[in-house]
């Protein structure tokens, strides 16, 4: 168990090391702090002096070690644009993103398991076919397009009038096809302050309504993947000898599906899915842009526009840390759930 933990932690450190090297390389090559600190009027000699003073002429390794040491204390320097420590800027935007990811994860878990299992148990039923059809359409729509369509339908509203307006049935049908819009689609709306930089959308109905469209559009990219994954795994498990043997034992089908098959299905889903949840953070860049959601994704994109290198680097490091933490947690959970992994680092 301890060896397993150490192995995972070592792996995590390795990944963080690589991310930090990349981040530092970006900072070293692209950011010129002198440019930001002093104006154009300062003569070159003075710049060179400042350069020396700040240690910018030191060898790469020395500079990297300084960067890494500061990074350990979450000190990534000052944002060019905001003029305050980048870590504070990131922390200010982080809760919005995390809440969005959390809401999305809940949506995915709520829908993927029942739908995936159902369409594996009854692969030929019309409903399963519908689910599979919708899911492949879902995969094929880029997340920002889903967001745009959702905005058009639920925020702006659609007026369809293919039927005669003056008849009762016609206007009823038109009403059925049209939407009024009005769903909030820009920003977070009113949030309730919790602690520190964390204000939440979950405390009020109003706040929750702002989450609806962004989280649905973010879920639209992952949900179909999960449904298809669960279905495929479950179909495979249902073909296995141990399921046949359970049938031959006279166990009820319900128990076979939900005790014998589901647990075996979920094992690979945990590994694959856990990683995917981590990558949701990356997709928030797209949804946040469409919905002007004030999270780190939007902040990152703005930072790119403004060439705010320290902020970009901080974002990379923090998001990298989030990825590493989720991956490590997923590995741990997998090890705990799967009896054939003895947490020694290798399957027995």
């Amino acid at each position, binding site marked *: *168990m*301890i*060896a397993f933990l*150490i*192995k995972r932690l*070592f*792996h995590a450190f390795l990944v963080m090391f690589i991310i930090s090297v990349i981040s530092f390389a970006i900072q070293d090559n692209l950011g010129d702090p002198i440019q930001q600190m002093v104006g154009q009027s300062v003569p070159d000699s003075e710049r060179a002096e400042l350069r020396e003073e700040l240690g910018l002429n030191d060898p790469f390794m020395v500079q990297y070690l300084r960067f890494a040491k500061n990074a350990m204390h979450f000190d990534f320097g000052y944002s060019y644009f905001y003029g305050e420590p980048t870590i504070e800027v990131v922390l200010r935007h982080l809760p919005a993103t995390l809440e969005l990811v959390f809401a999305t994860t809940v949506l995915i878990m709520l829908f993927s398991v029942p739908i995936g299992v159902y369409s594996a148990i009854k692969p030929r039923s019309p409903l399963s076919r519908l689910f599979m059809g919708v899911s492949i359409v879902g995969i094929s729509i880029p997340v920002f397009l889903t967001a745009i369509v959702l905005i058009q339908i639920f925020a702006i509203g659609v007026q369809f009038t293919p039927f005669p307006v003056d008849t009762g049935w016609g206007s009823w049908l038109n009403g059925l096809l049209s939407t009024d819009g009005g769903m909030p689609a820009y920003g977070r709306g009113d949030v309730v302050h919790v602690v520190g930089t964390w204000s939440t959308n979950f405390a009020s109905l109003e706040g929750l309504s702002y989450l609806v469209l962004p989280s649905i559009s973010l879920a639209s990219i992952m949900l179909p993947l999960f449904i298809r994954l669960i279905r495929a795994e479950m179909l495979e498990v249902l073909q296995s000898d141990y399921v046949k043997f359970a049938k031959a034992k006279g166990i009820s089908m319900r128990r076979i599906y939900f005790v014998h098959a589901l647990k075996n299905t979920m094992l690979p889903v945990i590994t694959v899915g856990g990683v995917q949840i981590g990558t949701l953070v990356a997709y928030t860049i797209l949804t946040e842009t469409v919905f002007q959601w004030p999270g780190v994704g939007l902040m990152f994109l703005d930072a790119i526009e403004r060439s705010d290198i320290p902020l970009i680097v901080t974002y990379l490091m923090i998001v990298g840390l989030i990825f590493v933490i989720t991956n490590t947690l997923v590995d741990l959970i997998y090890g705990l759930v799967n009896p054939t992994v003895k947490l*020694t*680092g*290798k399957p027995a």
Partner: protein
Amino acid sequence: MSKVRQQPQYPQESESAQAGDTLLQVRGLEKRFPLSGDFLEQLRFEGGKLKRRQAFVHAINGVDIDVKRGETLCVVGESGCGKSTVARMVMGLLHPTAGEIRYDDRRIDHLSARQLLPYRRRMQMIFQNPYASLNPRMSIQQTLEEPLRFHHPDWSRQQILDKIGEVMVSVGIDPEWGKRFGHEFSGGQRQRIAIARALAVEPEFIVADEPISALDVSIQAQVLNLLMDAQERHHLTYLFITHDLAVVEHFGTRVVVMYLGRVCEVAETRTLFDRPRHPYTQALMSAIPRLDDDGPAHIKLPGEVPTPVNLPSGCVFHGRCPHANDRCRHEIPQLIETQGSQVACHAIEEGRL
């Protein structure tokens, strides 16, 4: 690099005069496979401290085998006894951890792929699974043609085609079917094609790794007959790996019985079946289901084959042996000559058995 020998059509004919001399000699062969992958996976938590410990699968632990020219040497044992590993090391598919393999008096286990090339024509291999041993993307013609082109770059197209036709007929496959692909044939037919591929380069020595285990009874007989025909016609020497003692009894000249990576007993087939000496050989033979009821009473072995990760000390068989004593638990028995067979057993050496 050793010189490529000029081989006549059937080079063994001139050499068969020396029948009985040793063609393949294996001495002190060992093979272990590392069980744990990278450095981190070798870490163990022991007595409050992290320790690095490399675990190994000890597949082969000191095996001596001699294959005499013209004979069929059968290697039998249960799964995990290392019989296939021996075969693969002889063919250079695996590298031994220790020990040496000599072919025709020249050491071959440390040769590079290029240096091995001349031996590739002389030694060939037939595999267990006929469904996996033919490349699914190549037609039978291509499968047979490739080794010929590779080993005889100077041959004309007609020469190659003639040779392919000849081997196909000799294994009972209509040369007309050359354009077809492996999946169009049944298991027995595929095994014939695999045999044809091995025969095409005119080897003198063939390692057959469970060549009939995956086949049905009626097909097994066909393939065994084919192997015997080929041996007669081309004066082949076989190293025949199998778990089926009935086949050994019928087919083998001499038998090597293996258990957990060591040799228990070596004897002429007749001698072994008339008088199995080693307790494991005896148990193994009593376990074959026979058609008639007069077979020996089944000797029950307690326990199961231990894993080759933590090899038992002393005689590897002591944990299941009804005759084991303290010496067996500590001292590794060596092969000793007794009544026409070689046996590695303290009990026999001491006359307890």
